[in-house]
């Protein structure tokens, strides 16, 4: 879903991961400009994955994707090193605004 919004806006999606562990591995392998990460993921959770990614690359730019009701976890994710967040259901304009903010 987020991938579609980004692709339609002209961004290239270089990789996708189904679990937190995969996300960390793919980050190390692909070094993308931006990561969009679900807060809740199978295996290693999204927050733990952010922690691992920012430990590997302190300059990593991670945008958290949160569902309504997960706002408490958003603070934890930002504490873990995420740069910003968007709340589902995703509105393309909000997602792109957040992406631009994170990419600076």
């Amino acid at each position, binding site marked *: 879903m987020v991938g579609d919004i980004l692709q339609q806006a002209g961004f290239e999606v270089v990789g996708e991961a189904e679990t937190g562990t995969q996300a960390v591995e793919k980050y190390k392998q692909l070094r993308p400009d931006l990561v969009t990460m679900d807060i809740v993921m199978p295996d290693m959770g999204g927050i733990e994955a952010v922690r691992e990614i*920012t430990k590997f690359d302190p300059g990593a730019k991670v945008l958290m994707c949160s569902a309504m009701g997960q706002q*408490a*976890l958003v*603070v*934890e994710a930002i504490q873990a090193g995420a740069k910003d967040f968007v709340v589902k259901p995703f509105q393309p304009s909000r997602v792109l605004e957040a992406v631009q903010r994170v990419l600076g």
Partner: protein
Amino acid sequence: MLLFGVAGRLCACDLNAIREIVPARSTTRLPGAPAWVCGLLNLRGTLLTVVSLAVRFGEEDSAMRSIIVAEGEGRVFGIGVDGVRDVQSVAGDAFEDVDVQRSAGGIVRGLARVGSARDQLALVCDVDAIARQALAL
């Protein structure tokens, strides 16, 4: 609010809680203290407990360059940070509507959008909560 950096994160705290900012210097480690309590600092004859927010956020070490001398719960102590960035007034509607009750550690009381275009997200730290946890009040 005072904006400062901690291990790549942008943080903020109430300016009224800040007394001064001094360059980081070596501290005397306190045996048995939690890892995020760096130790004691002799600041012009006054002993201050200094904490590392980076370690509190789960980082193993940090490039601590400044110590924010703050007052929380009536006690003066030092908060070690990477560097002080800015002082900005933050309007009430810049605070994100997030529930922080379950957030890690309880030293962050919210998120605020800061910067001239509100394009940066800052963790708003609670100086009283940091004092309570660091000084075991």
